[in-house]
């Protein structure tokens, strides 16, 4: 079976869960295996409801001690459950949670782990995994050495098409947490709190990112970018130079030592396009570059490039977009 680990928030499944299901289909259909989704938590029903039509079987692994994510409890519960299942591949989201948990599951389940996966396929019955290396400078294809042995595949956000609804609901199934497996006093890690960061919505999930670099010139300059982002229902990102200058928090940094993003639309404003920045954004579906230097390397990776001063262009662009009252994109 092909397994997909779901990730949900209060609004239901995250986009990456739908992408992971889309990725899973690329293996399940040619291998003629069932696509099984697994939801972990203390009350997964709300999230499961939205996903029934996208998988062949939907498992809920529930326990009060799984209410808040800790890698320790999730790893114990998932390893005990999946250890008793046939697993040809387990697809995990390339989010902070998935990346935290994946290596632990790899050891617990005795399965190899592949990160930053951007493509999946089946060739002569073998699973082929395409993944990024060196910040996207190279693409490597690998296959499990043991042939049919299981593999954990962490996918890059934005790299796969979201799964489509099938005609019928999948089967609902319960995954029992082994009695006595999780004991509060035995858990070594405890979550004490969560502080939301002011930097707009989460970059990884954003459909539109308006990113600024040194060319934005100041923290106030970023207000202009925020205006454009708000109009498009997106969020604001930054190059390292802009973060180092103190104009934006590090959470907004895109690139090798920041976030790797793959939104539908990436608008790079006053960013030169250093390899370390490109490492984080070339997976975007559409790339717009605005730069006053016609020789800036960012133009090489752009679908459309505007040579000009961003401080002049962006206000004009906002006016143009307002004219047609572009509806903000629903997330």
């Amino acid at each position, binding site marked *: 079976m092909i397994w997909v680990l779901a990730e949900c928030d209060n609004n239901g499944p995250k986009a990456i869960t739908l992408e992971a299901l889309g990725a899973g289909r690329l293996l399940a259909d040619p291998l003629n295996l069932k696509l099984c989704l697994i939801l972990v938590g203390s009350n997964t029903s709300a999230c499961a409801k939205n996903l029934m039509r996208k998988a062949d079987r939907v498992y809920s692994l529930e326990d009060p001690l799984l209410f808040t994510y*800790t*890698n320790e409890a999730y790893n114990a519960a998932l390893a005990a459950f999946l250890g008793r299942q046939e697993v040809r591949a387990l697809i995990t989201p390339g*989010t*902070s*949670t998935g*990346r*935290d*948990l994946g290596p*632990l599951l790899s050891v617990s389940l005795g399965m190899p*782990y592949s*990160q*930053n996966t951007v493509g999946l396929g089946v060739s002569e019955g073998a699973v*082929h995994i395409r993944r*990024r*290396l*060196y*910040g*996207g*400078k*190279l693409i490597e*294809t*690998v*296959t*499990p*050495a043991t042939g049919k*042995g299981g593999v954990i595949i962490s996918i890059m956000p934005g790299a796969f098409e979201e799964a489509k609804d099938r005609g019928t609901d999948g089967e609902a199934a319960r995954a029992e947490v082994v009695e006595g497996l999780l004991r509060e006093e035995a858990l*070594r*890690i405890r*979550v*004490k709190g*969560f502080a939301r*960061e002011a930097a707009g919505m989460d970059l990884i999930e954003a459909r539109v990112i308006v990113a600024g670099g040194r060319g934005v010139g100041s923290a106030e300059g970023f207000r202009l970018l925020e205006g454009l982002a708000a109009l*498009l229902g997106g969020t604001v990102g930054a190059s390292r130079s802009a973060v180092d200058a103190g104009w934006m928090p*590090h959470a907004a940094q895109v690139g*090798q030592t920041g976030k790797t993003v793959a939104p*539908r*639309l990436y608008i790079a404003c006053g960013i030169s396009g250093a*390899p370390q920045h490109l490492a984080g954004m070339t997976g975007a579906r*559409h790339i*717009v570059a605005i730069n006053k230097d*016609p020789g800036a390397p960012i133009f*090489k*990776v*752009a*679908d*459309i*490039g*505007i040579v*000009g*001063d961003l401080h*002049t*262009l962006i206000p*004009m*662009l906002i*006016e*143009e*977009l307002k*004219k047609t009252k*572009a509806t903000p*994109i629903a997330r």
Partner: protein
Amino acid sequence: MVVCIKRVPDTGARVEMDGGRVREERLEWVLNPYDEFGVEEALLLKAEHGGKVTALTARASGGEETLRKALAMGADEAVYVKDALLDGIDGHGIARVLAKAVSRMRIDLVICGKQSTDSEAGYVGGALAALLDMPLVSAIKRLRITGGRFEADREVEGGVETVEASLPAVLTAQKGLNEPRYPSLPGIMRAKRQEIKYLDLASLGIGREELENPLKRVSLAYPSMERKGRMLAGDIGESAKELAEFIRHAV
């Protein structure tokens, strides 16, 4: 405290291929930036709580320079698992080797980088925690140790999560944890003279067969990053109109 470190190609470098392998001879190597945060954090902890900082690396060759950088920053000791059999071994095998080496030391804390900038796998820290059966707290941006416990901030989507766990533990360092120091000149001079402790697989009781890469490479290729983009360099008002049109279609 043990800090696991490795060398990576400078992120600004061109990565070239030759016959399905990365051509390594021409690359410039640096200490993995995330590992540098790890070394710095260990040194800060030592200044506050005392103790000893050991830098550890495992590879077939070329690890000395990486270890000397950590020594020059102020690490007390350098351990190098050097073995020709490690050539081409991926994170799965390296984590096993590091776990064996660490399990022979008396430690309170293992610090790794969140990921390396070459494979970007972020595998070794987590796998090490599982193999050593220690708690894992990954991608930390703040750390405070009190007694046998610690509190750390982790970077997660949309915010910062604060967790508390017991020692010994494995931590992985995220950017923002600290500002790594530059090695001082006396530090560099001292590091040159310091002895590196060598280990090999036999001395750790690890056989080659335990290290086989579980994922085989089928191919390696350059991605097609470049796009045949349109350039608008004329009247800025016209550019804005055309760009608005493009954006409307794109979203």
